[in-house]
């Protein structure tokens, strides 16, 4: 693609503004933490609790990542490389859990058995929720891999297992590592699933700090520890992503590798996959359906769920989702355009800065924004919540916006200009029709993420605004599972339908590239 050397100052300022905006909470939190006096900081950081949190959080991150790696890779290999009956259905079922918010998975399991409120329970829930983050890239890598390599291995006498470990696995390394790091990052910033499970991690403890002291110095110090962990994983992920791919050299047509017969393993494999689907989809969705049918006084919340309340919550979720998606995509546009059409060190820095926001957990964003705006007109307003969404999801939108803008060839734009159109007309009549579907996908992805977002919504929702997510949370935390069920059902439904529509139009692998 041709690039224009110098961006207009307006474009540059808009892009830089967006990049700086998303880093505002990070900068503010660090600045707050630095101001804490050394003695107090030492007392707050070297208390035994921080050790417990480190063990809990890192233990869970490591265990989840390892299990997700094995599960995801095994699923991907079975789907892509064997004579698995119902292959295409399994391929979909393995990816769908990603469309169910983890705290809904948590709701399902915790309402099934309160015995899950410990490390094992937390491990089960987040593994169920996040293993597709490994499955999707590994399956895509397996599809893209040149089967000739494996065939050479086999013809040189390697058995299927040795062939997998010596030929296939080394080629999967970038996809697998990238997926694992995404799992780790997501577990680190997860909040809702763990509060419902009453498992203490850095995010839940930050919330506890907030509850016992609003915005004291303890919260900002804990937040910095969490930030350091998140950014470490994010940098690792970026490095892995940047590594050279193991591309095929030949240009011939793609063909699928010759699938292996499963033989005697057929039934055990089918049973294993079925168990996985029951755990990841059956339990969360099944428990929602179960609680929807429990109307007896013993199980429902004291306040009946009325149609009006359900409508209000759904309306708030959708309204915030649409507004947040629009603002986020608009913010991502100048940055995406700058990156696609221009080059330069500063531009690379700006893009990296925007992606850095992926390493800032929602709870940190929310706490920083509360402290920053208290006493200003922005405080407790819907605009602040929408800004928070934009800060959280700009990196997500940027991936799709970039891809969409890259599809619009610069030549067509130049033709428009040379035929006498102004820049606005070119944007409206040339750029938007070309990049539109991709921008729509970006907006839809952000919309789904906002509708299923809990942490920031909980802390920043304007007074009186209740969304589907905050209602599920309020009812579940008082053990009123039946009252939470209709909200959970609506939210899971919204997320599943939007994701399905998106995937049908753009393909699953493209969707989850970010």
């Amino acid at each position, binding site marked *: 693609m041709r690039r224009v050397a110098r961006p207009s100052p307006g474009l540059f300022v808009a892009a830089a503004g967006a990049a700086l905006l998303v880093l505002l909470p990070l900068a503010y939190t660090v600045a707050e933490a630095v101001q804490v006096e050394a003695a107090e900081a030492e007392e707050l950081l070297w208390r035994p609790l921080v050790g417990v949190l480190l063990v809990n959080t890192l233990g869970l991150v490591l265990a989840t990542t390892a299990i997700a790696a094995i599960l995801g890779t095994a699923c991907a290999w079975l789907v892509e490389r064997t004579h698995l009956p119902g292959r295409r259905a399994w391929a979909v079922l393995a990816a769908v859990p990603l469309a169910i918010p983890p705290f809904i998975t948590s709701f399902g399991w915790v309402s099934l058995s309160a015995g899950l409120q410990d490390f094992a329970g937390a491990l089960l829930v987040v593994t169920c929720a996040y293993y597709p983050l490994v499955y999707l890239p590994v399956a895509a890598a397996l599809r893209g891999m040149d089967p000739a390599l494996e065939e050479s291995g086999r013809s040189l006498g390697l058995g299927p297992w040795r062939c997998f470990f010596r030929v296939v696995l080394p080629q999967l390394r970038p996809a697998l590592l990238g997926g694992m790091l995404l799992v780790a990052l997501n577990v680190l910033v997860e909040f809702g699933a763990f509060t419902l499970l009453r498992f203490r991690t850095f995010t839940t403890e930050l919330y506890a700090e907030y509850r016992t002291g609003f915005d004291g110095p303890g919260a900002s110090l804990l937040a910095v520890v969490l930030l350091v962990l998140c950014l470490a994983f994010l940098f690792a992920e970026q490095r892995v992503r940047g590594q050279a791919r193991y591309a095929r050299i030949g240009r011939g047509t793609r063909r699928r590798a010759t699938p292996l017969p499963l033989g005697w393993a057929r039934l055990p494999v089918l049973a294993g996959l079925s168990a996985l689907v029951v755990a990841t989809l059956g339990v969360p969705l099944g428990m929602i359906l179960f609680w929807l049918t429990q109307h007896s006084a013993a199980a429902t919340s004291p306040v009946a769920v009325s149609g009006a309340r359900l409508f209000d919550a759904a309306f708030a979720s959708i309204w915030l989702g649409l507004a947040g998606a629009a603002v986020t995509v608009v913010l991502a546009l100048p940055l995406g355009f700058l990156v696609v059409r221009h080059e330069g060190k500063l531009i690379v820095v700006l893009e990296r800065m925007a992606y850095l926001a992926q390493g800032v957990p929602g709870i940190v964003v929310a706490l920083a924004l509360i402290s920053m705006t208290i006493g200003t007109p922005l405080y*407790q307003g819907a605009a602040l919540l929408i800004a928070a969404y934009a800060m959280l999801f700009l990196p997500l939108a940027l991936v799709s916006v970039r891809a969409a803008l890259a599809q619009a060839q610069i030549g067509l734009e130049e033709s428009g200009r040379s035929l006498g159109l102004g820049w606005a007309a070119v944007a409206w009549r040339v750029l938007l029709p070309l990049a539109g579907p991709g921008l729509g996908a970006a907006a839809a992805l952000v919309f789904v993420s906002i509708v299923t977002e809990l942490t920031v919504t909980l802390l920043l929702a304007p007074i009186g605004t209740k969304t589907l997510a905050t209602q599920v949370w309020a009812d579940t935390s008082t053990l009123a599972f039946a009252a939470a069920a209709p909200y959970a059902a609506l939210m899971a439904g919204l997320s599943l339908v939007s994701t399905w529509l998106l995937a049908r139009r753009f393909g699953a692998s493209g969707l989850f590239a970010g």
Partner: protein
Amino acid sequence: MQAHGSRPRFRSYGRFGLAALLGVTLLPAIGRAHADTLTLYSAQHEQMVDSLVETFTKQTGIKVRVHAGEAPEIANQIAKEGASSPADIYFTENSPELTLLDEKGLLAKVDAATLAAVPAKYSAADGNWVGVLARENVLAFNPSLVKEAQLPASLLDLAKPEWKGRVAIAPSDADFLPLVNAVAMLRGKPAALAWLKGLRDNAQIFDDDEGVVAGVDRGSVAVGVINNYYWARLRTEVGAAKLHSQIHHFAGGDVGALINISGAAVLKSSKNQAEAQKFLAFLVSRPVQDELAKGDVSFEYPLASGVAPNPLLKPFEQLQPPALSMQDLGDDQDAAKMLRQAGLI
């Protein structure tokens, strides 16, 4: 991405869709305050507050928007917001947060008629907040793990080595802080700190009282320190037949039987003083207190004179709380500090 197939359709609708989406963001922010709307900052249980507010609006036509949170969080929030606080009323589970705001001079006098509805010892001495409901601290226990006869005589015994691993607490729940204050008041700070350190070694830590009572009920821990409210709530949710836990009332004026007062106040900065006072009067009015006592929502003792509590609760006169006044309990600020020193939060 396969954009080609969809391009013609996008050209006709898509751009206008995108424009409409942008338009949505220009809609005025929803949920802004109107003149006849009260803003209630609540640390009481959301379901209960929701139904109270609904009734209040039906009776008076005054709308109420609710901001819910944990008691110390909201108290500190109001203190931070200061004179610009949007809150008209603060309704909370425990008295220390009200005392804190009163010390900072943020509360307005409660109408004399409202104060008169409740025995004076359950409201602020200076009349700046009114007691609405009371709840008792109790010990939930699982009879399959510990016999009733082996239960401790005092809350302080739970720090002894024989309770290692067998007790559950929720130190970051707002209901735990008054207990810490009470122990410090009765035994002195060093003793209270030693007690907390003992608990740190012994206790399984939960986020909130709901978690504690659920943990005791499912048998993962023998006893748990809670307010009676949570056990009654669990009993209603799962049904008496499926319940595996019971509650033990500390006796003889032990600190473990401390009574927490749930109260309400009008903020000095409120621009809707008259309406806010109406809400306070409503909270302690006979029909509302009767309703709170009867329903399956609250399980707290109504404080208005002559209202009988829920029969599921031990009669209020039979409780044997420690000899502490609301003023003795203070404002929670030291309690949080001590919890941190002991390594509990």
